[in-house]
């Protein structure tokens, strides 16, 4: 997969993709913020400050950042339940995210949604979904609306490996291809649907080849290689925006934390988790490339990590100081 096969060096690739140092550093820093958000979420849970559950995306940062930087800020996003990284990379306000995570009135959804349902309609972020695959068919309506209103956005629809076995996955791919809708489908394969290894639940891999059945161009790529995600998403977005219909990208990645708070990781080995952390970590890999190409110094990575942590700590302080929702408002927002 990926870089071993290509002779191209990191520097050559950066030049070919016309990415500035500023852009590369923004990508690196954003991955750090996502990682620190997830580590803090885990810590807050351990401290008993989180009322509900959470699905953390540590280890999957390159997918979120590669996708968001390859597409436009005003493109539409349909997200899955492990969605913190995608919100952060779509330039969410971290303070409001943390408020939502902690159930505060100032949160994106006024504390009614929580970790699994963060949305920001003002930035075309149409929300995360607690139902596996539940958001996939919404892409059809978003795509149709984009066509009818003659807008030039695309709809990025992200779901996990588990969602690819839901019926709506197939229904939706069929219709999206039929109607040439402007949608980028991204299957963020983190190897496990809760406890089920993707190999135990998929008759044929990669998942992306299922798109072939609907005549949709597909790619199966290393989701922990930031620039590979960026390049494939950028090319796909251009093709989609030009009116050529949907594209399907499967990004192979790995989640470090368990599925949710109840997960004791009984279905995978500590060695497996460690191997991914030490040899395939997206932040480590991209950081090493930046160091090797002389764009940052080795000690800079720690500085960026600290900066990211400060942002998250400030968000926690902001959320801690924010009021809880008033119980008398519990029945508000049922109807518009």
């Amino acid at each position, binding site marked *: 997969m990926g870089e071993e096969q290509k002779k191209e060096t990191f520097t050559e690739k950066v030049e070919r993709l016309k990415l500035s140092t500023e852009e590369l550093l923004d990508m690196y820093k954003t991955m750090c913020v996502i990682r620190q958000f997830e580590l803090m979420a885990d810590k807050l849970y351990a401290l008993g400050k989180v009322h509900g559950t959470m699905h953390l995306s540590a280890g999957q940062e390159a997918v979120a950042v590669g996708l968001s930087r390859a597409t436009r800020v005003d493109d539409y996003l349909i997200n899955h339940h492990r969605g913190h990284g995608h919100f952060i990379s779509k330039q969410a306000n971290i303070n409001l995210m943390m408020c939502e995570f902690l159930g505060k009135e100032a949160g994106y*959804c006024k504390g009614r949604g929580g970790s699994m349902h963060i949305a920001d309609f003002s930035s075309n972020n149409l929300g995360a979904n607690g139902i596996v695959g*539940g958001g996939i*068919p919404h892409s059809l*309506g978003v795509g149709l*609306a984009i066509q009818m209103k003659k807008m030039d956005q695309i*709809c990025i629809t992200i779901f996990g490996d588990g969602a690819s076995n839901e019926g*709506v996955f197939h229904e939706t791919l069929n219709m999206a291809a039929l109607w040439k809708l402007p949608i980028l489908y991204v299957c963020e394969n983190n190897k496990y649907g809760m406890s089920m290894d993707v190999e135990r639940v998929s008759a044929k891999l990669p998942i992306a080849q299922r798109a072939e059945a609907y005549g949709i161009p597909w790619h199966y790529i290393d989701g922990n290689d930031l620039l590979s995600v960026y390049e494939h998403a950028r090319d796909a977005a251009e093709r989609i925006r030009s009116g050529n219909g949907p594209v399907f990208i499967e990004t192979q990645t790995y989640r470090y934390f368990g599925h949710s708070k109840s997960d004791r990781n009984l279905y995978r080995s500590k060695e497996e988790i460690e191997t991914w952390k030490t040899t395939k970590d997206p932040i480590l890999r991209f950081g090493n490339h930046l160091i090797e190409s002389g764009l940052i110094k080795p000690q800079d990575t720690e500085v960026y990590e600290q900066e990211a942590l400060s942002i998250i700590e400030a968000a926690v302080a902001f959320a801690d100081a924010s009021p809880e929702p008033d119980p008398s408002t519990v029945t508000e*927002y049922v*109807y*518009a």
Partner: protein
Amino acid sequence: MPEITYNEAIRSALREEMRRDERVFIIGEDIGRYGGAFGVTTGMLDEFGEKRIIETPISEPSIIGAAVGAALLGMRPVAEIMFMDFTLLTLDQIGNQAAKMHYMFGGKAVVPMVVRMPGGSGTGAAAQHSQSLETLLMHLPGLKVVTPSTPYDAKGLLLTAIRDLNPVCFIEHKLLYKTKGEVPEGEYTIPFGVADIKREGTDLTIVSNGIMVHKALAVADRLAKEGINVEIIDPRTLVPLDSETIINSVVKTGKLLVIHEACETAGWAGEIMAVVSSSRAFDYLDTPMRRLTGKNVPIPYNRILERAAVPQEEDIEREIRAILNGAY
């Protein structure tokens, strides 16, 4: 006022609203050249074209999902689910997605969409094409549930449904499609949450919807010749429910009979009785409240069995007489 059918009234609402508002489109199965399984969208493809009369594969969950997505972007989708029974295929999209988005996103998502669904028995279509599932939908906060019984109500309520900012389940009874009634030309709307007193009376309050309103009316007309005056209230929208009109009527008559085709267990008759029994009308009741509903069975195919599964005029007459004779 011209007389048109229930079917034509629905088409007229769709057509007028699509002419008025370019955000409105219809999505569903066989709604183009075929005109929909019950012919409601007949001729609309010619006027509006396939970009606004969107025919889909047989993929009900994603039809509703597509409507949700379009509604989130400010469109006004009207989805047609060929038979209400197929709504069960779509419950995630209706119940977990459409119904909950406004709330779970803190009031920031708006999902203005209509799902039209023909329900009810009487066509020999048996267990999977004959159900009355309105209670299932009433139990999901975030949805509005509309069950028009006349062409006039169908048109006025559908215009309101399309303009409403929430997901609206619009339940049409199959046996009503060919019934006729007076419908004014041009635009008029009927607000949600306003019941219609289909017949005024003093002796007994009947609350009913859909086809059962017509059966109750026929019985009431016959009983009127004997001097029995039955009041018939059609809530028209079950969510939101016009409790006040029902309560006022029971205060007047002192007797309540709720009639619906849907199954008895946890059916909405129980909800109406709960509303009345916890209101000031309770003190005015002079007999126990009663319900006459579909039996707790799947709708059978055989004509005699199918009739026996849901209330018929003779059942309604018998029940009214029993209540008035103090049988309970």
